[in-house]
């Protein structure tokens, strides 16, 4: 985005220079200067972003001192800004004469939410406490929900907040607090050794660079539909989405419902199966005894349960 801003600034200054030269130079000169400035900066931006991002993520992920992680975060953020510089402005459309205030607002909003999303994502993978990781992931989800809203997926935006940030992350927090109640664990401070953080951050940077490079090939592509004729952006979003969901994708909805039921049963089965077999056998024998003897004999109280709390009587 900002590279195009730079180019625009360059073209403005070039045209100002041209006007100062008694408007003698043709507009083609300004255009060539703009292209020249853009093309001198452009080739270094993406490799620089990849390099900085890789170094930053590596510093954050290799379980160093806190200062090292903060420096890594700053470097990675710098890499993200460079990556943003390689991107085109989402508001600079070919048919409009210039960016209106509304377009500027949308652009600022986009970069704000993208920044929140990526910073929170970086914090998710680097925080040493899983609780903080989960909270940062919830922040990532809020940013993603905003991005969904910006591109016209209102229902999914709300669904992401409600289902993901509301239910799944809370479930994560429950499990963290059930399973890791004794405090900081050693395995949150180390990785698999020295090489894996380096290799993983290099792989991540290469992946991002590859995606950014490949999306450049979409440059001349004209959108199949304009924003005004886009059915996704039309009025009555929910009605259209619901009609699509329950007509074209009805079988998939049924299968998803079945899947939810199976997952529910499966989760309960896994938790029951995972208990200590000795305890399960003891409970089973106790239940057998109570059913044989009738309700006359009270079940022996378990350690952490009030007397008679067997549930069978």
């Amino acid at each position, binding site marked *: 985005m900002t590279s195009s801003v730079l180019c625009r600034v360059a073209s403005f200054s070039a045209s100002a220079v041209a006007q100062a030269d008694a408007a003698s130079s043709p507009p083609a000169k300004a255009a060539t200067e703009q292209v020249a400035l853009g093309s001198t900066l452009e080739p270094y931006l993406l490799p620089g972003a990849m390099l900085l991002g890789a170094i930053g993520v590596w510093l954050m*992920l290799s*379980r160093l*001192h*806190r200062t090292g992680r903060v420096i890594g975060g700053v470097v990675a953020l710098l890499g993200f800004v460079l990556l943003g510089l390689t*991107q085109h402005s*989402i*508001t*600079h459309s*070919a048919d409009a004469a210039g960016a209106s205030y509304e377009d500027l607002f949308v652009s600022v909003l986009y970069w704000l939410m*993208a920044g929140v999303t*990526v910073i929170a*994502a970086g914090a*998710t*993978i*680097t925080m040493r406490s*899983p609780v903080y*990781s989960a909270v940062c*992931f919830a922040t*990532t989800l809020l940013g*993603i929900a905003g*991005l969904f809203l910006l*591109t016209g*997926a209102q229902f999914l935006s709300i669904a992401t907040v409600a*289902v*993901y940030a509301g239910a*799944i992350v809370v479930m994560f927090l429950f*499990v963290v607090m*059930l*399973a*890791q109640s004794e405090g*900081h*664990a*050693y*395995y*949150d401070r*180390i*990785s*698999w*050794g020295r090489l*894996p953080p380096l290799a*993983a951050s290099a*792989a991540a940077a290469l*992946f*991002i660079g590859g995606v950014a490079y490949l*999306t*450049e090939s*979409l*440059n001349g592509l004209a*959108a199949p539909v304009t924003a005004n004729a886009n059915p*996704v952006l039309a009025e009555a979003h929910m009605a259209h989405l619901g009609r*699509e*969901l329950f007509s074209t994708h009805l079988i998939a909805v049924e299968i*998803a419902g079945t*899947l*939810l039921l199976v*997952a529910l049963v*499966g*989760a309960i089965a*896994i*938790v029951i199966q995972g208990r200590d077999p000795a305890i399960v056998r003891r409970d089973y024998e106790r239940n057998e005894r109570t059913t044989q003897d009738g309700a006359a004999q009270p079940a022996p109280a378990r350690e952490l349960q009030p007397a008679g709390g067997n549930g069978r009587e």
Partner: protein
Amino acid sequence: MNETALLQNYLVLGGVLFALGLAGFLVRRNAIVMFLCAEMMLQGVSLTFIAWSRFHGNWDGQMLVVFIVAVAACEAAIALALILMLYQRSGTLDIAFWQNLREEHLPAHVDRRIPEEQPEDRAWPVLTPAGRIPEVDLEQISHRRTL
């Protein structure tokens, strides 16, 4: 808005999320954090689906994301039950505890050096007390079971 540029921006952002999740999944050893990273990769993919849905002006991308959310909820329920069960059996969330599941010819991972916890990481969040302190009933406390 410039639709093509919007698509490109969203694709790159989805790629960034996917790559960060990938790096976290490969590097972290806490089972719960690894699972969070997998969810983050899923979110990156969702972002690209939404962007394509808008670009082409049809609903299929959004439908896929609806089902991604549903499947992610199922997956989270199953995976967290599994994690809880594994924790009950092993007493640790360290994924290296289960490295007996590796291939036979691979060497075991041994931690060379486990760094000590830094003093600044030993700080715990503090809740500010709110309201008034309740009056303590000594009679009640004497009946309360001490664990």
